């Protein structure tokens, strides 16, 4: 893909109409909040030893519960559905500290979601001509799309930002997967004192 010279870019502050559309799209893509906690093995809880399962290949198969202190605190694996989305979002925010003004981050995240949706579905591509220039009709490559988590952080240079998205979706063959990762780089220019963020081709 080549970058179109006429770029439709993210301006800060956005025109109200664009903001309303983005907010509407963002509202649809809002996460389901859920309470999650990783319950620990109850202290002192034990099982009486049970026979190894028939055909077990484990040399020293143990019927013991995982002892307190040995309890795994794994992060959400794939396939956990919407219940894991808040945990993934919180994980990203905790491990990748915010380094952009909050408003800038919100706008970049919204733009990043829009770019992703345009890429996977064809919807809204005319908004990003520098990425999807001169293309004809598009049928969606993915359905059942859900953005599980998204953050925006500074990029590798002062005038770059990266939107990191974790998302789920099914391809046309019907295979569904979550934990898909897309990174979209935005570059900043200035026009009449306003910062303009433009997505770069990958």
């Amino acid at each position: 893909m080549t970058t179109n010279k006429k770029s439709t870019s993210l301006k800060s502050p956005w025109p109200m109409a664009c903001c309303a559309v983005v907010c509407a799209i963002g509202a649809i893509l809002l996460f389901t909040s859920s309470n999650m906690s990783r319950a620990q093995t109850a202290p002192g809880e034990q099982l009486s030893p049970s026979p190894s399962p028939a055909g077990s290949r484990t040399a020293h198969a143990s019927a013991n519960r995982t002892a307190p202190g040995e309890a795994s605190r794994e992060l959400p694996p794939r396939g956990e559905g919407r219940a894991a989305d808040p945990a993934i979002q919180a994980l990203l925010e905790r491990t990748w500290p915010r380094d952009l003004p909050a408003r800038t981050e919100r706008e970049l995240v919204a733009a990043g979601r829009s770019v992703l949706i345009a890429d996977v579905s064809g919807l809204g591509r005319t908004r990003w001509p520098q990425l999807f220039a001169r293309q004809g009709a598009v049928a969606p490559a993915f359905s059942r799309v859900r953005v599980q988590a998204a953050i925006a952080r500074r990029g590798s240079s002062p005038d770059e930002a990266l939107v990191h998205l974790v998302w789920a979706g099914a391809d046309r063959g019907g295979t569904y997967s979550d934990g898909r990762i897309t990174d979209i780089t935005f570059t900043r220019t200035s026009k009449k004192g306003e910062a303009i963020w433009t997505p770069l081709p990958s």
Partner: protein
Amino acid sequence: MLMFAAVCCAAPIAGGLSALAALQGEGDGSDDDFAEAGSAADIPPRMLAAYKKAAENVTRHVTKCKGMAWPILGGIAKVESNHATGRTIASSGDIRPKIVGVLLNGSGAGGNTSVFPDTDGGKWDGTATGERAVGPFQFLPSTWQGAGKDNNGDETADPHNAYDAALGAAIYLCGGGRDLTHKAQLRAAIFQYNRSNAYVDNVSNWISQYQAAAKGPDLSRSPKKVRIVIAAALAQRGVPYSWGGGNKSGTSYGTCCSPSGKSGAHINGFDCSGLTVYAFAQAGISLPRTAAAQAGSGKRIPESAGKGALRPGDLVFYGYAPKRDSTIYHVGIYVGGGQMVNAARPGTKVRLDPVDAMSGYAGGARLL
């Protein structure tokens, strides 16, 4: 397949937000349709035969094409139709019932917002009121007119025939004579097939899985401790995943619960890091208990080094932000040939998977 170069003009966009709503998750994906690893064993034999025959014959039509191989066609067909799963494939290659996609009339069905005018009078897609993608490779009828060739010997180019459709896809991907052994050209070919970067990533991932599955691991030159660790892990194949389960002694009952409420408390098995703790303990190596913590063990192999840097016996990691170890949520043991042994997720059993089976590759760690 969606042909954009030949479909001119901006198309009317209908029902944008309703199409977006149609695009959104209808659910979280049941276990039935969640992505599992790809291998030739998962492909219906007649489809695999069609891919192989197409790969063999494509140079009769695109003489300069290099590098066409069945995993490429398998990757495309996987994401376009899941290898015609659920259909009957005759010995001739005819697929029934025919595979037709959503009606591309901009109604929002399947997230479609663009109008594709009818080009075949219903010959291939059964409707003269619009256009549907057809066959296992989801050709638009308009594209098939240019790319379709006979490859099953009945002198008819039929997009609903596995052999013909596979050859048509191979021809389209070869373009004017691409060298598909070059990653950039392969990506360009896939992008031409469907202009979406996420689509290219998805197809590329499946291609890698099919390529890996075709090779198979070779441990004959691996050090003794590597063979001990891998053998210990492979011996656990078939043992159920248990959230919180597993320790250096073997399987154990796990804990409650994963974020979606899946409990390991009644399952005697391994979670991903419990399996690696056990396997490495057999070689006298003590690992920390979580995948993220295990990334701090041994010599770190960065994600940037690529999967080609992995050696049998390495730990393999996956993260939600792959460059940040604290987001690592999964670990497996590399066995070579592009494959790892792992306890993948709740509801699965310890098994071999291609390292490309999931997103978020976060590098490895070498302890042996």
